[in-house]
Each structure stands twice: as structure tokens, then as C-alpha cells.
């Protein structure tokens, strides 16, 4: 049973107030993109055992989407941050590096 802190309203709420939205920082492929690119956009998943970046919505609270950096093996939450960004902020990446030296995730490290 996760506890997450919504960066939009500051509530540190239990999992049942939130809704998981799957992998984060996915770039949309629209018309004109290759079958390969479109497939990856919709279906190819990182699904790592370890550091992961994902989307959550505070559905029973302020209704806002946000990002979470989490370990899928220990469920440790490294931090939550705005949904309006295309990559994890530096402070979050630093926090992860401190806890999981040498981590990588897609193009991030």
C-alpha cells in the first residue's frame, strides 16, 4: 500500500486516493510517424526491475496529474514532481543517484 505525496496539493495520501497512469515521459507519435515509432509510443515498455518513472493522478484529491520516481523492487519513492515536464528534474535525479548509484532509465541517468 503505497503512500504518495501529491506535489500539486501537498497531500501525503494513501494509494487509494490516487490512480496509476503508467510509464512517464513518453513522447507522442502522431500522424506521419513510422509504424515502429508509433508501436513503441503506445506499447513498448521499460518495465524495469528497479528505478522507474511513472505517472499518477490524485484522482480523489486535487485531480492533478504528477510524476513519481519509484523503485519497482523495494517500492521506495525517490520523489514526486510536476507532470508538465519532459524529463525528471535534476534534484530528483540526484536523489536517485544517491540511493541507486549508476542507475539508468531510457536516456536518463
Amino acid at each position: 500500500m503505497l503512500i504518495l505525496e501529491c506535489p500539486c496539493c501537498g497531500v501525503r495520501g494513501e494509494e487509494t486516493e490516487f490512480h496509476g497512469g503508467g510509464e512517464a515521459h513518453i513522447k507522442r507519435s502522431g500522424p506521419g510517424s513510422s509504424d515502429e515509432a508509433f508501436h513503441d509510443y503506445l506499447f513498448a515498455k521499460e518495465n524495469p526491475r528497479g528505478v522507474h518513472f511513472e505517472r499518477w493522478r490524485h484522482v480523489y484529491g486535487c485531480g492533478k496529474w504528477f510524476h513519481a520516481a519509484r523503485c519497482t523492487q523495494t517500492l521506495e519513492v525517490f520523489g514526486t514532481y510536476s507532470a508538465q515536464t519532459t524529463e525528471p528534474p535534476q534534484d530528483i535525479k540526484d536523489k536517485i543517484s544517491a540511493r541507486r548509484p549508476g542507475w539508468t532509465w531510457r536516456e536518463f541517468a
Partner: protein
Amino acid sequence: MSEAQSALRGTWHKGLVTVAEAGLQGMITLRGQTGEAGFADAVKQATGLDLPDTRTIVAADKRAIAWMSPDEWLLMCPYEDAHDMVAGLRAALAGRHHLVENVSDARAMFTLDGDDATLREVLAKLAPVDLHPERFGPGEMRRTRFAQVPGAFWLTAPGAARVVCFRSVAQYMYDLLCVASSEGSAVGYFKP
């Protein structure tokens, strides 16, 4: 006006605490950018109220305004004033990107009254919220989950709470609150 009916028409029940449907209540959803210069002033001009801080609610006589999300507020006023206040707000905010909608009829409101510790326990049976007296007090607005439906609540004073939910589930919310405050179910956890 007599034709207007609130969801449960003021039904009430006395258990560990007294649960009552609050009847018709004006409510208005306001969305806009706090950061935007003049926005708060425009709202104050139309409502006479200051925008509340994050997760709080401010009240003045028959009006109140609650923080709902970084770009959303819930205004409360007498039911019959709602349409005028909507018009007033729209006028005051004209030219800015905003949204003002009357949601008075989309919601149901309940009042809970009783011993403060007991009232907190009734709420804590249904909502996954830390209701310890030292960590949740009057003036704080909490949007959360009541058993299986969304709801919001705040304490107007020790021993007095308001709960808001969607109109369609008013009966469910009422039944929940009554079950949670049924005879013999006092928890005795929050010490007065």
C-alpha cells in the same frame, strides 16, 4: 423557489453524531490562474472574499471559498444568489482565461455535529485521512474518498463538520455517515 428540491430535502439522523443533509446550497466552480495579476482582486470584487491558501477554506457570513486545486476553487453562497454571483464573476473576469460554472445542483452537502473526538472518528471510518486533532483542524479543506465515492470535508468548528459529495450519491453518503455513527460503534481513540 419552493419548487427547488435538494437531493435529500434536509433528511437527518441522530447517532453518535447528528448527520443532516444541509438543504439547498449555492456552489460555484471557479477556475483560473492565481499567479495572474489582478485575478485575486477580480474574484474579491465579485465575491468579497480573498482567495484561500492551499487546502484551506475561508468563510465570511453567508459566503465561503475553498481551495480545490492549484487552479480551482469552490465558492459557496445562498442557493438563490448563485446565478447572480456566476454572472458577477464572469463579468469581473471577462477578458481573462477562466471558467465559472454554477454547480449548486450538482452537489449535496451534509452537516455533522457532535462531540469533536467522536465526529473525527466517524469521518475516520470512511476517509483515509489523518484526523488527529493536532494534525487536522478547522479551516482546512480536504478532498478525499469516503468509502467508494469522492467527497470533501472541513471542520467549521470543533465538533462541527461539513461534507460535500456529488448529488447522485447523496443517499449513499448519507447512509454511510449514518452507519458510521450508529449506536455502539464509538471507537474511543481520539482522546478529547
